């Protein structure tokens, strides 16, 4: 029998040393599954509009059937991106201060890219 090192409270919480349990892992997998169809749809859409005018692209995203998957693609991909880059930062930044700064910058950048993309999409979707 192995020696139990966890307190009863830690056992019932089940969150481990990361204090967030498997939430990061699970969200990364959920967004990965969502991105399989969404990214295929995105590439197909983008290829169909190669060489098109701005107005044609805007008209495409003015239709909800295209605006909705594009919105989901932006949310899922920027979230998946921030989760993945977080792991890379945690692997390679050994200095505590640098790591915290990089982790913050990672989240800020994901939100900035997501917000900029999302607002541009909303502008076209509601035009």
């Amino acid at each position, binding site marked *: 029998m*192995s*020696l139990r*090192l966890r307190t009863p409270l830690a056992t019932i919480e089940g969150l481990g040393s990361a204090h967030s349990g498997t939430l990061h892992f699970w969200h990364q*997998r959920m967004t*990965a*599954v969502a*991105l*399989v169809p969404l*990214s*295929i749809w995105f*590439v197909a859409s*983008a*290829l169909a509009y*190669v*060489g*098109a*005018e*701005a*107005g044609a*692209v*805007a008209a495409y*995203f003015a239709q909800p059937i295209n605006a909705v998957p594009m919105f989901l693609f*932006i949310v899922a*991909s*920027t979230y998946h*991106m921030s989760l*993945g*880059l977080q792991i*890379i930062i945690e692997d390679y930044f050994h200095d505590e201060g640098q790591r915290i700064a990089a982790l913050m910058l990672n989240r800020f950048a994901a939100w900035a*890219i997501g917000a*900029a*993309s999302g607002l*541009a*999409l909303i*502008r*076209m979707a509601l035009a």
Partner: protein
Amino acid sequence: MADAPNSPGPSPRPYGRPLSPHLSIYRWPITMAASITHRATGIALAAGTLFLAWWLIAAASGPDAYALFARVAANPLGLIVLFGFLWSLAFHLLNGIRHLAWDVGYGFKVPTAKLTAAIVYIGSLVLAAGAFAVGFMVKGGLGT
């Protein structure tokens, strides 16, 4: 961490020797290359989201902004970046499916893992080349 009651405890380690074999020790099996490429393509795709944001902002801003985007994208350097983006997405997508299969317990045998890694490399190149060909040759290029 407490040692188990009957463990011999930490053995003395001479300084200056590697603690365990590390990256520089191994030959590069294809599975290891695929793992590192997955991470590298993830970083490349993160940079690619800037391109995506630019595309959407340009399309929302009107013809002038969009013409600038299209000119940059149609530039040889832009085409290289676009091909890199397509290949990175194809690789990350296919290898991501490989990871999801592992998550539910399939594909762990070494010959299987080697085979699926090779399929991911070849498949991603085929997909990226195919998408690139459709987008930039059949349609006659980006120039409007």
